[in-house]
C-alpha cells in the first residue's frame, strides 16, 4: 500500500466513530498497544519536551527505508503517534518527504498538532521529516 492508501484506510476507520468518546477510546487502545521503543533510545537527544506531555522519537535505516519508533508519557499522544508511525514508518525518505499528511485533519485531530498545543506532537512530526531529510542526504 502507498502512504496515501494507508491515510485513506485510517480515515475510513475513523469514519465509523459517531462520538468523540469512541474516537478517543480507540486512540487509547492503539496508544496502549504501541510497542517497540527500546529503553536505550530514551535519551535526552531523542526527547521532545512539550509543556503537557513528553515524546521520544528514534529513527534508523533498514535498507532504503526509515523505521520510526516513538513513545510518550500520555496515552492520547501515544495513540496519535501510533497512527503517524503506521503511515510513515517503513517508507523511503522520498516517499515521506513527498507526502502531505492529510489524515490528521480528516479524522478531526488537527488541533492536537497545532503549535498552541504543547504536547510535543508538532515538533515530533517536524523531527520525523528532519530524519527523512538527513537520511536522504546520507544515502546520496
Amino acid at each position, binding site marked *: 500500500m502507498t502512504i496515501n492508501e494507508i491515510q485513506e484506510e485510517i480515515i475510513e476507520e475513523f469514519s465509523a466513530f459517531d462520538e*468523540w*468518546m469512541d474516537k478517543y477510546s480507540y486512540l487509547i487502545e492503539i496508544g496502549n498497544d504501541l510497542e517497540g521503543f527500546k529503553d536505550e533510545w530514551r535519551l535526552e537527544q531523542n526527547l521532545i519536551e512539550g509543556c*503537557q506531555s513528553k515524546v521520544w522519537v528514534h529513527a534508523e535505516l533498514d535498507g532504503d527505508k526509515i523505521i520510526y519508533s516513538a513513545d510518550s*508519557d*500520555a496515552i*492520547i499522544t501515544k495513540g496519535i503517534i501510533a497512527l503517524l508511525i503506521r503511515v510513515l514508518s517503513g517508507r523511503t525518505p522520498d516517499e515521506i518527504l513527498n507526502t502531505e499528511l492529510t489524515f490528521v485533519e480528516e479524522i478531526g485531530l488537527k488541533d492536537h498538532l497545532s503549535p498552541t498545543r504543547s504536547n510535543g506532537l508538532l515538533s515530533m512530526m517536524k523531527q520525523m521529516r528532519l530524519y527523512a531529510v538527513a537520511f536522504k542526504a546520507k544515502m546520496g
Partner: protein
Amino acid sequence: MTINIEQIRNDFPILNEQVHGKPLVYFDNAATTHKPQVVIDAVSEVYQKYNSNIHRGVHHLSNVCTQAHENARLKVQEFINAKHSHEVIFTRGTTESINLIASSFGETFLNEGDEILVSQLEHHSNIVPWQLLEKRKGIKLRYIPINQDGELITDNLNELINDKTKLVSIAHISNALGTINPIKQIIDLAHSKDIPVLIDGAQAIQHVNVDVQALDCDFYVFSGHKLYAPTGIGVLYGKEEWLNKLEPYHGGGEMIKTVSFEGTTFNELPFKFEAGTPDFSGSVGLGAAIDYVQSIGLDNIAKYEHELLEYATEKLSNIPNIRFFGTAKEKTSVVSFLIGDIHPFDLGTMLDKMGIAVRTGHHCAQPLMQFFNIPGTIRASFAIYNTKEEIDKLCEGIERIAQLFG
C-alpha cells in the same frame, strides 16, 4: 447575606458559551477568572466616551480619563487598606510587580552572599526573578520546605530567616494546591530581624480580605485578571518608605520630573514606577471589578467558595484511585489531583471534550511537582460563579474517562 448564584452567573456573559456543543463548565479560575458585564462595560465606556492619554493633557477628555484612572487607584487603596494611594503602583500583573522589586530592590540592597527566602510552593514568577539575581549579583535563593499536605514547615524559620536574609518573598496562597500560608507569622518574624517581606497575593486577592496595614507586609502584589478584572493590569503595593528608597524600574515618560542630557530627576510616587502611558482602560476595569466583588462581599465569596471546596473534595474522594495533592487544613477553593496513573494531559483533553475546562500540568510550579515526584496534576479551581451541579458534571466526566482507561 445569602448569595444568589443564578443572578451572579447572569453577570458573566461567557458562561452562556458552549464548548464542543456542551455548556461551558469553567474550573480554571486560578489561571484567570471571567469578567462580569459591568467590567466589560466599564472598559468599553473608556473607549467610547473618554479615551485620551492621561496626566499630561489640558483638554477635557484627558482630564476625565486621568480622573477615572486615579479613581481606580483610590479603589485599590481602599480595597487593600493601604495607608496612601501613592503606595499603589499599577503594573501589568503579579509577574511584573515581582520583577520590579527584584530589579529595583536588588540593585540597591543586594550584594554577593545575601539571601532571598521563598517557599517550596512558589509559582515560577516568584522563583525565576530571584534566580536571575543569583546570576547577576551572586546572591543565594533559599526556600521554606513543605510537608506532604502541602503546608509550609515553619519549625526552622528562625534559622532560614537569618542575618544574611535581605528579603522574604512568599505566596499568600499556593496556586497549585490552594494552601493558605501563615504569612502573618512570617512577616512578624522577619520584621523582628528588620527584614522586609513581599507577599505574592495573585491567588489570594479574589478569595480573602487583604489588609496590608494589618498584615504589615512591605510589598503586596497581585494581578487584575484573577480578580474578575481585565488582563494586563496588576498592582504593586509598597510601603511609602520602601518605595522612596528604591530606584525606578523602567525609564520613560510619566516617571520623570525634568529631563536634560546632563541628568534627569524623577517624578514622585506613584509615577516614579509608572513609565510610559499606563493601561488606563485596565485600571478602570480593575476599579469596576473591585466594586463588583465588594457588592457581593469577600466574606460571602469566601464562604460560598469554601462550600464548593468541601463539596468537591467529598464528591471526588468517592472516585477510585484518586490522589489529592494539597490537603492543608487552611486552603482556598483549589483541588489538585491525579486518578490512578492516567496522565493529566489525557484526562484534561477528554474533559475538554465534555466542555469542562480544568488546568493540567505543572502549574508553573515545577519545584513543587518535583517534591511530590509527579509530572503534574489536574487542577480544578472554583470561583464565585461555579455551582455544585458543575462539580457533579466534573465527577461524572472523570468516572466515564477512568472507565476507558480500565
